[in-house]
């Protein structure tokens, strides 16, 4: 075992997959010589060569579209969109082609590729550098959408994403890139896509979150524990497909649920989870399923982020309200 942060863990997964599968290539803006603006691909070009780890011209639609071509021809491209706000020029390729290629060709062709995107706020960044676009992808039939919250999961989920036969959007919560360190096995392992993880077992309320919100949720749960509340925490890990089994079992047990996302509210993952809970555990509910999300506004620039970002105190406030409901 080796102590890694999320940057190290993703780098390690890419390194292992480049070694294991000659079809894997890693490219995007500044991923080669520079090693990525967050240093996630650092050292990979030196080790695996410029044919396999390289800088592309500055064009996100081109990066995504060429990856589809490579994937159709049997390669395994793992591409990077430099920031969440820069994926939008590639949406046409992702929505119109990558997500649909298997279906359109009745299974003759497919697009098994991975799109890595650092995402989310809380790093005092420039405009278009703090977006939470997961709902767009979760809403797009044909994509799988994964978000790790720990270095261990980051490695296992990325390996699974690269080995998956279908396109996977792999969102990296950049706020916690270097915030959490843990022991991570050095060998190759994978974590199944579409499986949530119960991080904390509890009896009175189910808290569902993912990505950078997990850490905030854990702080809120520590406050709840001090006040004698027992909260179960589910790390969703996959936005699509949603792990109905884990959600159902937990909510049937607790009867109360709070969903926390940084993404804006309307039509977001929290809304989808509330629908799933209605379908799966309606008769077990003791309180209305509740969501704590970003506002339906543009995420503000750094001086305004304090109004937008969800704090442990706010999460705790909702926990308290729901348990007393």
């Amino acid at each position: 075992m080796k102590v890694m942060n999320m940057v190290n863990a993703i780098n390690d997964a890419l390194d292992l997959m480049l070694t294991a599968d000659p079809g894997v290539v890693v490219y995007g803006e500044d991923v080669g010589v520079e090693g990525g603006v967050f240093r996630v691909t650092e050292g990979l070009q030196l080790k695996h060569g410029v044919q396999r780890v390289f800088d592309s011209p500055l064009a996100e639609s081109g990066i995504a579209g060429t990856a589809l071509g490579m994937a159709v021809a049997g390669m395994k491209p793992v591409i990077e969109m430099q920031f969440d706000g820069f994926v939008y020029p590639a949406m046409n390729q992702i929505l119109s082609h990558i997500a649909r290629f298997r279906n359109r060709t009745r299974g003759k062709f497919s697009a098994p590729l991975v799109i890595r995107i650092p995402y989310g706020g809380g790093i005092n960044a420039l405009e278009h550098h703090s977006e939470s676009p997961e709902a767009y992808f979760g809403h797009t039939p044909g994509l799988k959408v994964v978000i790790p919250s720990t270095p261990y999961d980051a490695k296992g989920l990325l390996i699974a994403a690269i080995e998956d036969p279908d396109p996977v959007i792999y969102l990296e919560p950049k706020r916690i890139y270097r915030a959490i360190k843990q022991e991570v096995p050095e060998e190759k392992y994978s974590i199944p896509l579409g499986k949530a993880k119960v991080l904390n077992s509890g009896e009175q309320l189910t808290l569902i979150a993912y990505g950078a919100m997990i850490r905030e949720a854990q702080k809120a749960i520590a406050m709840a524990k001090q006040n004698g509340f027992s909260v179960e925490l589910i790390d969703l890990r996959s936005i699509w497909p949603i792990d109905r089994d884990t959600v159902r079992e937990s909510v049937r047990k607790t009867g109360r649920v709070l969903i926390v996302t940084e993404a804006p509210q309307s039509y977001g993952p929290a809304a989808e989870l509330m629908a799933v809970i209605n379908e799966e555990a309606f008769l077990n509910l003791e309180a209305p399923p509740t969501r704590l999300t970003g506002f339906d506004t543009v995420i503000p620039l750094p001086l305004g982020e304090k109004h937008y970002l969800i704090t442990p105190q706010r999460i705790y406030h909702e926990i308290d309200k729901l348990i007393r409901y």
Partner: protein
Amino acid sequence: MFNQDSLDKHRALDNRMFQLLSEDGKPLEKGWKPSLSNEEIVQAYKDLLFERTADLMAVSYQRQGRMFTYPPNLGQEAIHIATGMVIKEEDWLVPAFRELGAWLAKGVSLREIFLYFKGNEEGSHFTQANRMLPVSVPIASQLVHAAGLGYAMNYNSEKAAVFAFVGDGGTSEGDFHEALNFAAVWNVPVIFVVQNNQFAISVPMSMQTKSVNIAVKGLAYNVPSVLVDGNDLFAMHEVLSFARAQAMEGKGPFLIEARTFRMGAHTTSDDPTRYRTREEEEHWAAKDPLKRLKSFIEANNLFDLSQEDELVAEYKKQIDSSFEAAEQHPEYKLDDVFAYMYSDMPDELKRQKNIYENYLNQSGGAK
């Protein structure tokens, strides 16, 4: 003065660059005289000096933790100052994000610029700047807006040009090509200025394009295009003036590849030592636009350069006071998050804001 004949002689396909001054500030052609008056030249030098001073101070404010990520302009100022000299009140300025001197010329206050990079959208209001769009972080996306503005100028029979900026990396984006094509097909008065500073963050030109230069990309769309020494204020001024005059005669769009070098980092988060050599930096340091103009001024005795220290000291005071004004800007309020999303705030947004305000009331204001 740059004219149709000069354009014909500086064929982009031959990779011929238009340049008037040598690196040490001497005219390349014997007997050449600037088309600018002595006063204009001295003013341009002062403006360039001001931009450089403000830019260096911005980087140091960031280093002091008083401002967030900032994209330095160091080495590219001649392009901005020349643009500022040519652009008119009625013209549109469509920036990317590295044109400080041109923004200032258009009437943006330093206070606003600092406020923006401190992380407040109020800094994008540009209260005193007529006809300037906000900076555009999504690379090259602003260029199609420029073509649309150009269409509106023609549609409204306005005598006004649109100056649109992008970097070398941005020329790989589809929007760059779409903008050139729209502008040409519609024959609109848009002057595209590509600041080719050699690197898109870490990626050098050689990996960005196999074209002989960027100017040739305009030719394919039948847009008159020329490669210009972007560190030569006189050359930039002449070509920009010509491009604007052409646009005002109804001759449509124009593309300028301004060849320059980003002497600083991409942004304050970037470390250029990872991807470029000291030799490369020294090669370009010799072409420094400020140094070049200063040599010209010195050789022609246009300005008593012994006053420069005093001038810079004065600028620093002025810049510091703009920064302090940005620091004293009223606190970012919750209302500011919601107020500008729609013309009238929809009930749903009011509801979301009310819920949060109720929470704040209960928590005693703690987030």
